[in-house]
C-alpha cells in the first residue's frame, strides 16, 4: 500500500465497507483511500476545486464585509471595492452591530436560546427511554410502532401546524400562580412542537446506535438481577453518549435555524427569535443594509460555532438521520 507521508496510519481494516462509521471527520481514514492517488490531483482538479471553494465563499464574505462598513459606504458602492483600500478606516465601523443588538437582535438572540435549549435537551431523554425499549425489550406492537416512527421521519411538519395553532389557543387553565391563556405566543408553543417533531429522528438515531451495542452486556446485567430501569441508566445511557450528542447537535441547529414554526407560533415582536427578526429586517430594508447584515451575522454565530466545534458528531447525526441507503 502506497501511503503518502502525511496520511495517518489507517486504523480501519483496509477494504472494509462500512462507510457509515468511517466518516472523513470521524478520526479514522480508510486504508483504501490512501492507495487511491491521494495527493496526486492534477492542476486541473486543483483549479476546479479552488474555483468552487471561491464561489462558495464569496457570498458569505460579502455580507461579513458589508456588516462592518458604514451605512453610507454600503449603500453607495459594492462591498468588493474595499479591496482597493482596505486600510481606509473611515469606511469601517462596529456601530452596525451595536445598533442591531440594541434594535432587537440582542433580545432575539436570548429568545432563540429560550426556544432552542429546551427543544434540544428535553426530547433526548424521552427518546432514549423509547429507543431502549425498542432495542432491548420484546413487546406486542413493537415492530409496527417502529415502522410508524420510520415513516414519520420524512413527514413534513407543515402537516401539524394548522391543528396545533387551534390546539394551542384552546389551552386555558390556571394552576395556582401559573395561569396560561393560550399557548400561542409563548416559547413553550415552539419548543413543545419541536420536541414532538424531533422525536421520530431522535428515536431512530438512538435505536440504530443502541442496536450496535453488545447484547452480551445487557444479558449479563439481567442475569445479575439488574432491572431494565437500572440497566438503562447505568449501562446504556453512558454507552450511547455519541449518539445522544449527534442528535442534540442536529436538533439544536435545526431548531435555531427554523423560521416557519417560530414565525407561526411566536411571530415578530418582543418574542421573536433570530430567524424571525432577520426575516423582518429583510422586509424593512429602508432602514438600511447595515442592520440586516449585522443582524444576519449575529443570527449565524451560534450555529456556525456549534457546527465547527462539533462537526464530527454533526456529520454522524446527519449520516444516521438521513434516509439511509
Amino acid at each position, binding site marked *: 500500500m502506497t501511503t503518502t507521508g502525511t496520511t495517518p496510519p489507517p486504523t480501519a481494516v483496509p477494504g472494509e465497507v462500512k462507510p457509515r462509521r468511517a466518516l472523513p471527520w470521524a478520526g479514522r481514514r*480508510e486504508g483504501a483511500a490512501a492507495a487511491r492517488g491521494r*495527493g496526486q490531483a492534477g492542476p486541473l482538479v486543483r483549479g476546479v476545486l479552488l474555483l468552487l471553494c471561491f464561489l462558495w465563499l464569496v457570498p*458569505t464574505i460579502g*455580507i461579513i464585509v458589508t456588516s462592518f462598513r458604514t451605512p453610507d459606504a454600503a449603500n453607495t458602492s459594492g462591498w468588493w471595492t474595499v479591496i482597493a483600500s482596505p486600510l481606509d478606516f473611515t469606511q469601517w465601523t462596529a456601530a452596525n452591530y451595536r445598533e442591531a443588538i440594541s434594535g432587537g437582535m440582542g433580545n432575539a438572540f436570548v429568545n432563540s436560546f429560550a426556544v432552542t435549549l429546551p427543544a434540544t435537551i428535553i426530547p433526548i431523554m424521552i427518546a432514549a427511554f423509547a429507543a431502549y425499549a425498542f432495542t432491548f425489550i420484546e413487546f406486542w406492537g413493537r415492530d409496527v410502532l417502529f415502522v410508524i416512527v420510520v415513516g414519520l421521519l420524512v413527514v413534513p411538519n407543515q402537516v401539524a401546524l394548522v391543528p396545533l395553532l387551534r390546539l394551542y389557543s384552546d389551552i386555558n387553565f390556571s394552576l395556582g400562580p401559573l395561569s396560561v391563556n393560550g399557548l400561542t405566543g409563548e416559547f413553550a408553543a415552539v419548543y413543545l412542537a419541536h420536541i414532538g417533531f424531533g422525536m421520530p429522528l431522535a428515536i431512530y438515531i438512538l435505536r440504530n446506535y443502541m442496536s450496535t451495542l453488545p447484547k452480551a452486556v445487557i444479558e449479563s446485567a439481567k442475569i445479575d438481577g439488574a432491572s431494565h430501569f437500572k440497566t438503562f441508566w447505568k449501562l446504556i445511557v453512558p454507552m450511547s453518549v455519541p449518539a445522544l450528542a449527534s442528535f442534540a447537535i442536529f436538533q439544536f441547529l435545526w431548531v435555531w435555524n427554523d423560521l416557519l414554526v417560530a414565525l407561526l407560533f411566536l411571530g415578530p415582536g418582543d418574542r421573536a427569535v433570530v430567524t424571525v427578526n432577520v426575516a423582518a429586517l429583510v422586509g424593512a430594508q429602508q432602514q438600511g443594509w447595515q442592520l440586516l447584515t449585522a443582524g444576519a451575522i449575529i443570527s449565524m454565530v451560534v450555529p456556525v460555532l456549534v457546527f465547527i466545534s462539533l462537526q464530527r458528531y454533526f456529520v454522524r447525526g446527519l449520516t444516521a438521520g438521513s434516509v439511509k*441507503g
Partner: protein
Amino acid sequence: MVRVINALLAIVVGVGAALLLYYVLNMLVERLPDKWEERLKPYAFIGPAVVMIGIFLVYPAVRTFILSFANAQSTAWVGLENYTDLLGSSDFRLTLVNTLLWIAVVPALTVAFGLGVAVLADRLGPQAEKLTKSTIFLPMAISGVGAATIWRFVYETRPEGEPQIGLQNAIVTALGFDPVAWLQLDTLKVNSFLLMVILIWAQVGFSMVLLSAAVKGVPEETLEAARIDGANERQIFFRVITPQIWGTIITVFITVLISVLKIFDVVYVMTNGNFNTDVIAVRFFNELFRNGDNGRAAAIVVMLMIAVLPVIVYQVRHFRAEEAAR
C-alpha cells in the same frame, strides 16, 4: 435575563418532570405481579414518546386531513371545494409547476455537485481535502434566512447609472450590459432558478459528506481489478464506483427531495412567492397566515403529504429490508 431563567427553568422542569414520570411509571409497574410487570414495562418506557408523537404529529395529521374538507374558519363542511378551488386557480397551478421544477432541478444537481466534489477532493492531500470540504460544508450551518440574506448581496439591483452593490449586476454592468432586476425576472423562470441556486449552495455540503464517505468505502480491490482490465478513470467512475455507492446516492437524493418539498424560508425571505416564484410551502403559509384560510392551508398540506407518500413507502420498505439483513 428573565427569559434565560425561564428557559433554564423549562429545561429543569421539563427534564425533571420526564424523569419523575419515568420513575413513577417504573415504580408502579414494578409493584404489579411479575407477569404483568414484564408485559407493561416496555409500554411505560415508550409511552411518553408515543404520546408526544401522537399529540404533535399523528393527531394533527389526521386533523389536517379532516380540516381540508371544511371552510376557512373550519365551521362548515365544504366537501372537495378547497381542492377544486386550488387546482382550478391558475395561481396555484403555477405554484405546483414551480414546486415540480424545484424537484426536477435541485436534488439532481445537489447530488451531482456533491459527488463531483467528493471524488475530486479525494485526490487532494489530507489537509487540502479537509479544507475544501469544510468550505463547501459550512453553509449547512446557516439558516435559510441567513442564506437568503447572504444571497441578497449577489442578486441586489440598483437602477441604471447608480453603482451596483449586488455582485451579479456589478459583473453584468462591467461587461457593458444594463442591470437586471434578477428576482423579478420570470422569463424562463430565471428568478426561480436563482432561488434554487441558494438551496443548492446550502445542501451540496451535506451531499458531499455522505457521498465522500461512500466513495472512500469502495473497496480498493475492485478499482485495482478494473485498472488491470484496462478501464480508464471515466469507466472506473461510472461502472465501478457509481454502482457501489448507488444506495447512498438514492439516500442523498431523497433527503434533498424532502427538503425541497418543504422549502419555505429561502423563498419567503427573497420574494415571498411574488414574481411567479411561489412554491407549495410558502403558499401554505400565506393561505394560513395572511388569508386565515384553514381549509385551503390544510388542503395544500394534504397534497404535500400525497407527494411524500411514495418516499414514506420506500423508506419503510428499505428499513424492513435492512432489518431483515441484520
